[in-house]
């Protein structure tokens, strides 16, 4: 199995990577675990592969309780890092729920955030997919829609985002640092992704050549003992989420003073559950409040013909995640 031939080059430094990445048809190669699958499946056909895997962007470091992840840090190294396991266990949990041991040794933080959807219509050559071939239609909309989104979809695309790490980082309000033609920029992870609307082939707000250099997670040590990542999937390991929930709470004197919830597998991007968060804040973490948070999580869900079960699954996953944190405190 292989795709069309491409030119290979290695980026000498980050500036060179940006220059080479801006060329027409260029694709960055980091761990390669998604790019090679996409290339073999015909979902991507780069003219040039720019190898960034050896750039010095692998460090994991901490600052005032916050955390910086180099874009090329391997997932297994991040999950095993003592500062991550101590202050940011949510990140380690999400990573260890992802892929397999071999893939976590190869895959990088930046590549994980930019992985393409697992929608079978996107991944299978010959099927209609506006993301792979704009204008060809969305096969999932009227076809097999079990994986499809409950939120944020459009009539041109109902695919979901597959990253576990992105869901955890969304709940932790992480920021992305990029280098591009316009220099260095830093913005919330939520602003990296785009909803499909009528241009599902554009998944991020990155311009050609923009290189993710790192991720910054603000001080989250206050959540370390009260966070959880719940991933519901079709088998116990090495499978993408049907539904996942990242939850963090801060409880003081029996009252929730801070709540963050994000869901995976249900939208084209990590889906922040702000209405559930608002319903939790200022209240005691008791069953009726938690049930309300579950109800609000699915309030605006718009299921298709095969994914209606995900509505109840998400509601229950939110409740289970919050109960898990409650049991830990």
């Amino acid at each position, binding site marked *: 199995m292989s795709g069309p*031939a491409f030119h290979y080059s290695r980026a000498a430094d980050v500036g060179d990577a940006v220059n080479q990445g801006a060329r027409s048809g260029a694709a960055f190669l980091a761990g390669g675990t998604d790019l090679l699958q996409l290339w073999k*499946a015909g979902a991507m056909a780069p003219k040039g592969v720019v190898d960034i895997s050896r750039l010095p962007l692998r460090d994991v470091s901490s600052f005032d309780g916050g955390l910086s992840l180099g874009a090329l840090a391997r997932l297994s190294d991040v999950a095993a890092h003592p500062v991550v396991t101590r202050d940011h266990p949510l990140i380690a949990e999400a990573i260890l729920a992802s892929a397999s041991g*071999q893939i976590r040794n190869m895959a990088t933080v930046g590549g994980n955030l930019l992985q393409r959807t697992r929608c079978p219509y996107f991944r299978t050559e010959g099927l209609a997919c506006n993301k792979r071939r704009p204008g060809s239609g969305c096969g999932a909309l009227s076809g097999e829609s079990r994986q499809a989104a409950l939120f944020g979809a459009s009539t041109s695309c109902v695919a979901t985002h597959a990253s576990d790490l992105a869901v955890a980082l969304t709940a932790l309000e992480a920021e992305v640092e990029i280098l591009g033609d316009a220099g260095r920029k830093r913005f919330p992870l939520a602003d990296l992704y785009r909803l499909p609307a009528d241009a599902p082939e554009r998944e991020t707000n990155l311009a050609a050549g923009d290189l993710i250099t790192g991720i910054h997670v603000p001080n989250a040590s206050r959540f370390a003992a009260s966070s959880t990542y719940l991933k519901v999937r079709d088998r116990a390991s090495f499978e993408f989420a049907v539904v996942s929930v990242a939850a963090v709470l801060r409880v003081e004197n029996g009252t929730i003073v801070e709540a963050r919830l994000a869901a995976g597998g249900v939208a084209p991007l990590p889906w922040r559950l702000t209405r559930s968060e608002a319903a939790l804040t200022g209240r005691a973490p008791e069953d009726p409040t938690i049930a309300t948070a579950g109800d609000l999580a699915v309030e605006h869900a718009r299921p298709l013909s095969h994914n209606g079960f995900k509505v109840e699954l998400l509601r229950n996953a939110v409740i289970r995640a919050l109960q898990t944190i409650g049991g830990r405190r």
Partner: protein
Amino acid sequence: MNAATATATGSPLGVDTIALSITINGKSHHVGIAASATLLDLIRDQLGLTGTKKGCDMGACGACTVLMQGRRIKSCLALAASYDGETITTIEGIGTAEALHPLQAAFIRHDALQCGYCTPGQILSGIALLDEKPESLAAIREGMSGNLCRCGAYPNIVAAIAEVAGR
């Protein structure tokens, strides 16, 4: 990193040949490869080390597992050009017929295979997992989820790894 050896020569057709140096099982190789060759194709087709298997070729089955500096990776998702200068271990570098690796011996004792196609990948993945010190049978099962066995020898595979891990 050895940028000097990874010299790409482009052609109008976009078919590049890349000079690559790689150490496999302690032996260094200097070869010309296609830009789009995977590490798996290099190992099997160019170097003739066919112990590493091509199962799904999409990163799902784990039959192509090799070690890079002791860490397990899937060679079907590794672009060979990106591994210039690296040190790789394949199943041919593990044990000998006279002196098996302890995990190989345990696989035989526990009857941890039927057809044997997935076994090289299972062994290499298991060796790397042993270095990660799995603390329970559940941790071994989770740690081996990247290696599929169509014959369903999973209980015996887990038992073999558990024996060597002392679990």
